């Protein structure tokens, strides 16, 4: 136990002093600081009015009505697409505008001409489908159709009240009974990504540390002092706690920046940013699954580091673990992107031990997940860790003192355990 602690303390201390660790931490904190400062910086440019940010005109859309039946339609559209400036143009301008559109992704043209049936037909021209007008073609058609029907009814002498009633938008309210919220959804996906990068980064740290000790022959000095299994456990613990401290520090820094820099009434696309999904229980369980996930991948990565002699072989050695982690990440990521609609995908991700550490933060923040489900997921993960650890220690024992031709996994497993 004392030896495990010695390896742990040495690994932790040296890991924390490494330039790559310090630089990475500083860069991440700087990015968070800058990201959280963006609203304040924007406010300083707009005289302190959040609305100005939202109502800025980022797009230009020309409006040509060759029929004369939908004049004034640009005003209706301007109410809906608030970030777009609508400019009324004449049919003579059409060719020039279309020519401009070819070189300007933010410009579009709405042309209303008579169709084959003599009725108005709308043509929207834009550089690509991502242009605001092109992307909202359905809304534009709906609003202009409404305007056209109003005009037709007016010509038929129908009273304003009846027209207004006929055109009345029927109120529609969306009530959600599940736990999926926009903030929880975004935070969950962010956590899946962060967990993956953290597991990869710290796992890589363990692998490169083992590989470096082996290639520099320090391993031979270590191995006569302590059992390989103690070295492996101490090293994984050291890197893991270091990672947890960095991860925790980043979360605390983010919370502070959020509290101090993000304006309380700030919204993104009309949605208020909120951290209500983060309850003490969910935070605790997220940390537990992070630790379990890290342990699982660190054990496998340590073995990858032990099977090679030279550091430049590390990436190739880590490829199998990388494929497992990438596959598990994408399974979790795409499952999360689809929300909690597909139960079987969520369950699959939760109970596959390699993807559970990635999907569980999302599930915990976005839904009613039963206690037994969490326990089952964690239990499968723990059992897998025990099995993987046993195999890893065996392979590690066989690999750390093997030099020369790279040891195949099957050979390493077959090799008898050293004393």
């Amino acid at each position, binding site marked *: 136990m*004392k*030896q495990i602690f*010695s*390896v742990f303390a*040495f690994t932790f201390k*040296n890991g924390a002093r*490494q330039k790559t660790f310090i630089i990475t931490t500083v860069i991440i904190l700087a990015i968070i600081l800058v990201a959280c400062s963006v609203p304040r910086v924007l406010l300083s440019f707009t005289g302190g009015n959040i609305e100005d940010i939202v109502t800025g005109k980022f797009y230009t859309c020309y409006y040509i009505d060759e029929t004369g039946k939908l004049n004034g339609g640009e005003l209706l559209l301007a109410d809906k697409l608030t970030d777009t400036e609508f400019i009324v143009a004449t049919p003579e301008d059409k060719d020039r505008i279309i020519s401009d559109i070819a070189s300007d992704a933010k410009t579009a043209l709405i042309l209303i001409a008579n169709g084959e049936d003599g009725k108005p037909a709308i043509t929207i021209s834009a550089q690509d489908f991502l242009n605001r007008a092109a992307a909202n073609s359905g809304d534009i058609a709906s609003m202009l159709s409404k305007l056209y029907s109003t005009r037709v009814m007016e010509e038929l002498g129908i009273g304003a009240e009846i027209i207004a009633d006929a055109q009345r938008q029927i109120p529609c309210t969306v009530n959600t009974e599940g736990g999926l919220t926009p903030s929880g959804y975004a935070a969950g996906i962010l956590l899946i990504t962060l967990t993956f990068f953290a597991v990869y980064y710290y796992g890589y740290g363990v692998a490169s540390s083992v590989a470096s*000790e082996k290639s*520099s*022959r*320090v*391993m*031979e*000095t*270590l*191995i*006569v*002092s*302590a*059992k390989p299994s103690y070295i492996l456990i101490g090293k994984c613990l050291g890197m893991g706690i270091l990672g947890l401290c960095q991860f925790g520090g980043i979360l605390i820094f983010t919370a502070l920046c959020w509290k101090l820099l993000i304006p309380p009434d700030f919204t993104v696309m009309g949605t208020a940013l909120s951290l209500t999904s983060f309850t003490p229980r969910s935070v605790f369980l997220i940390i537990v699954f992070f630790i379990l996930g890290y342990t699982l991948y660190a054990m496998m990565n340590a073995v990858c580091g032990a099977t090679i002699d030279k550091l430049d072989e590390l990436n190739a050695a880590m490829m199998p673990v990388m494929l497992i982690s990438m596959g598990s990440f994408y399974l979790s990521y795409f499952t999360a992107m689809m929300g909690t609609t597909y139960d079987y995908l969520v369950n699959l991700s939760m109970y596959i031990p390699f993807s559970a550490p990635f999907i569980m933060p999302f599930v915990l923040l976005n839904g009613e997940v039963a206690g037994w489900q969490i326990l089952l997921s964690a239990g499968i993960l723990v059992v897998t860790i025990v099995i993987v650890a046993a195999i890893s220690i065996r392979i590690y024992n066989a690999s750390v*003192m093997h030099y020369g031709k790279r040891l195949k996994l099957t050979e390493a497993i077959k090799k*008898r355990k*050293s*004393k």
Partner: protein
Amino acid sequence: MSLVVKDLTKRFGEKTAVDHLGFEMTAPGVFGLIGTNGAGKTTTIRMILGIMRPDAGSSEWNGRAINRDSLSFGYMPEERGIYGKVNVLEQLVYFGMLRKMSKADALASAMKWTDRLGVAEYRYMKADKLSKGNQQKVQLAATLIHDPQLIILDEPFSGLDPVNTELLRQVIGELIDAKKYIVMSSHQMTTVEEYCENIILMHRGKTVLDGNLREIKAGYGHTRLLVDTAEDTSAVAKRCGLALREKRADGVEYAVTGKAQADKFLAELTAEGIFPTHYELREPSLSEIFIEKTEGGE
């Protein structure tokens, strides 16, 4: 206390790296494992220390199998390995603590050994800033930090300059005085002859010679005669039946059958008025025995 190695055998595929090797060390001192590169010395050491499992045989210390827990041993591997990016004192303390020392004891011992080995001024420097020789001394400090009973030194003199070689000689002398059991592998015969009472000569995994060094050399007898004269001695040597071994800067060396033949040669020389400025009748050196044995095995 005793170190008993019995029938150690290790095979790597078709190749037998160590073939039924055995020896005993029943008193403190230095035991020499001698052999060419690839003779199986390092593999033997790894099996003795229990970090590599032998295919057959055993190694015991006081009747108990050797492992990290049963014996406090110190091991300096042939390929030196220390942390380049960690300062010297810190890693020595770490190695000491891995040997179950308290931090305070490890620190005190690290201070003592860095002083003794002349690397005190580098204690707070990163190891990769040190010269190769100084890194080697740090490695030796890591080997001795926990005051081990059994010390295994794998090619300890390789890469050392004359000053550091002398320092290491002194340290080994002190360890012998302190009644330590030292197993030293080397292909530097002068060093082995200086310290080792008993040796094993290995060649391609096999033991080609083993036993007490003095007895081995005595068994060969006084068969080397070095003579330095101003005159040419070849005609007298031929007359006395001496075979020329080599012409050296400090004289001519002949192979003789024993003292009687050497005496006869000396008498003939003086009778002809040739008086040697150097006349030495000696046993073959270990190096010569080594070459004879290994070349004979080719």
